[in-house]
C-alpha cells in the first residue's frame, strides 16, 4: 500500500484536505478584495462601525436561510418554500406577541411552525413520492404565502417583544472600554453560532456524512443501510426550522411582520449557496463556503448602496456573480480532472 508519508504521520489531516481548504480560500479572497475595494472607494463610509454592523445585521436572515438551503442542496434537493415559510413564521410570531404570549413562547411557536412546515415538505417528498422536491416546496411556497396573507389580513403587524427586537437589532459590545472595543450585532452572533454548529454537523457527525452520501449516490446510501427517507424529512425539517429562525431575526430587525416579507428570499438563499460553492447535483458544499457566499452578497448590496447604484443594477450584479461563481467552479473541476 502506497500512502504519502505526511498522511501516515498525521492521520485524518492529509494533504488532500489541506488542498481542499486552500481551494476554498478563493471565496475568502473575494470577500477581502471586496472589502478593500469598498474601503478605497468609500473610505469615509464603508469601514465605519455603523456600516459594518448594518451589513452584518442585514445579511443575518439570508445567511440563516442559506444554511438551511445548503442542507437540502447537499442531498441534491431544493427548498423553494423558505421565503414564504419565513414570512409565515414572522406573522405567527407577531400574532402570538399581540395575543399576549410570553416572548419565549411566541418565539418557540414561530420556530416550531417552521420545523413543522419543513417536515411536511419532507413527508410530501418521501411519502407522496412526488418526483422532485421542486414540486413539494413550490406548493408549500404558495400555501405558506397565502396563509400569511390570510392570517395577517394583508397588512403589516408591528410591535414585537423587546426580546425579539434585541435578537434582530441589538449590538453586543465586546471588550468595552478597551481599545479592542467592538460592537457585534446579536443576530450576527446567532448566525455564527448556527454556522459553526452546521459545520460540525455536516463534517463531523455520522448523520452529516450520510447526507453527503445521499446527495452523492442515493443508492450507495441505501446499500449502506441509511434510512434515506428519514434523512430527507430531517433535512427539510431543519431547513424549515432555520427559516423560522431567519424570520425571528428579520422581524426583530424591522420590528414588524409584513405579509410580503421573504418574497424572493428563497432565490437569495439559493444564490448564496451557489456562490458558496455547493453543487446542485448534491453531495458537495460546505457551511464555511455558504457563509462567505452570503457575506459576498451582503457586501455587494452594501457597496452598491453606498455608491448610490440603483437596486435594479444590484440585481443585475447578483445575477452576474452567480454566473461567474459557477463558471469558476466548472473551470476548477475541469482542471482537476486533467490531473492524473
Amino acid at each position, binding site marked *: *500500500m*502506497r*500512502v*504519502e508519508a505526511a*498522511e501516515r504521520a498525521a*492521520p*485524518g489531516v*492529509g*494533504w*488532500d*484536505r489541506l488542498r481542499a481548504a486552500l481551494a476554498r480560500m478563493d471565496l475568502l479572497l473575494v470577500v477581502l478584495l471586496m472589502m478593500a475595494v469598498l474601503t478605497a472607494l468609500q473610505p469615509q463610509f464603508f469601514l465605519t462601525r455603523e456600516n459594518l454592523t448594518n451589513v452584518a445585521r442585514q445579511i443575518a436572515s439570508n445567511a440563516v436561510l442559506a444554511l438551511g438551503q445548503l442542507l437540502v442542496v447537499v442531498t441534491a434537493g431544493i427548498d423553494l418554500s423558505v421565503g414564504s415559510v419565513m414570512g409565515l413564521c414572522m406573522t405567527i410570531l407577531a400574532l402570538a406577541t399581540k395575543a399576549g404570549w410570553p416572548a419565549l413562547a411566541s418565539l418557540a411557536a414561530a420556530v416550531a411552525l417552521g420545523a413543522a412546515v419543513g417536515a411536511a415538505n419532507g413527508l410530501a417528498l418521501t411519502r407522496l413520492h412526488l418526483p422532485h422536491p421542486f414540486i413539494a416546496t413550490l406548493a408549500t411556497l404558495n400555501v405558506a404565502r397565502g396563509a400569511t396573507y390570510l392570517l395577517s389580513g394583508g397588512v403589516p403587524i408591528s410591535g414585537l417583544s423587546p426580546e425579539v427586537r434585541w435578537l434582530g437589532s441589538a449590538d453586543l459590545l465586546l471588550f468595552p472600554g478597551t481599545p479592542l472595543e467592538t460592537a457585534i450585532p446579536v443576530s450576527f452572533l446567532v448566525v455564527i453560532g448556527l454556522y459553526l454548529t452546521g459545520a*460540525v454537523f455536516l463534517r*463531523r*457527525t*455520522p448523520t452529516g*456524512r*450520510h447526507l*453527503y*452520501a445521499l*446527495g*452523492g*449516490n442515493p*443508492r*450507495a*446510501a441505501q*446499500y*449502506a*443501510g*441509511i434510512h434515506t427517507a428519514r434523512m430527507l424529512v430531517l433535512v427539510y425539517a431543519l431547513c424549515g426550522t432555520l427559516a423560522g429562525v431567519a424570520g425571528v431575526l428579520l422581524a426583530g430587525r424591522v420590528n414588524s411582520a409584513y405579509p410580503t416579507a421573504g418574497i424572493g428570499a428563497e432565490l437569495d438563499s439559493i444564490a448564496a449557496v451557489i456562490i458558496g460553492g455547493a453543487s446542485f447535483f448534491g*453531495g*458537495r458544499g460546505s457551511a464555511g463556503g455558504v457563509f462567505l457566499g452570503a457575506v459576498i452578497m451582503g457586501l455587494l448590496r452594501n457597496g452598491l448602496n453606498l455608491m448610490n447604484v440603483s437596486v435594479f443594477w444590484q440585481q443585475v450584479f447578483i445575477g452576474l456573480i452567480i454566473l461567474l461563481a459557477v463558471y469558476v467552479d466548472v473551470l476548477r473541476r475541469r482542471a*482537476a480532472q486533467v490531473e492524473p
Partner: protein
Amino acid sequence: MSEPARVEMRGITKRFGPVVALQSVDFSVQPGEVVGLVGDNGAGKSTLMKILTGVYRPDGGEIWFEGRRVHFASPLDSRRLGIEMVYQDLGLAENLDTVANLFLGRELTRRVGLWRLLDEPAMERRALEHLEGLRVELPSLRLAVERLSGGQRQAVAIARATAFAAKLVIMDEPTASLAVAEAGKVLELIRRLRSQGVSVVLISHRLQDVLEVADRVAVLNRGRVAGVLPGHGTRLEDVVALIVGGLA
C-alpha cells in the same frame, strides 16, 4: 465433510407471477471457496443471489448458513451473518473518500460532550490496515472515490464489503468494465480473500476470469442448475455448452 458448508441453498424456487425464475435450485459454497455463478441473462443468477442476501424471499426451499437454518426478512439479516454483496454499480458514494466509503453506515465515533462525532483517525487507521491486508494500492485514502480508476474503485467496493468480518462476499460482474491488467488485480484480490477464509460467489459473463479463479463453477440455465463443474481443468466450451444448451 467435517465443517458445515458456509452457505447451502436447497431446492430454492422463486416465481414472479406466472414466471418461474428459479426451479428447485441447489447451491452451496464452502468456507474459503470461490464459486463462479454463470448463466445467460435471465437464467436466474441475480434472483438467486437476491434471495441469498435477503432482498427476495423464496417461494420454496431452505437456506442453511454454517449448519443452521436461516430466514432472511431483509438484507440487514443476511449482512448480520456476514453475507455481503458488491453490486455491479459498486454502490460507492463517489463524492466521498475511501475511508468514508469503507465505513459508510458503520462509522466509528467518539463522544464529545453531547455530540457523537466521527473518529477520523481511528477509521483511517483501520482502513489502512484493512487495505494493506488486501494489498490494495491507492494513491491516497483521502481522495474522493471519483478520482480513482475503475479497478481502484472496484477494490474499494470489495474492501468495503469485507471490512467488517465478512464470511461470504457476492460479487456481481466485478471485472466487466475493467481493462485486463485491472481485472487481473481484482482476481488477485479474490484469491487473497479466499486465503483469508472468506467465501466468494463470483457472478460474471467473463468466463475466462471465472475459470481462472473459481474452485467450482455453477451454471444456471432458465432457472435450473444445468451443472456444477470444477474450476480447474474445465474447458471454456464445456461451460458455454451448459449455458446455452437445452436442459437434459
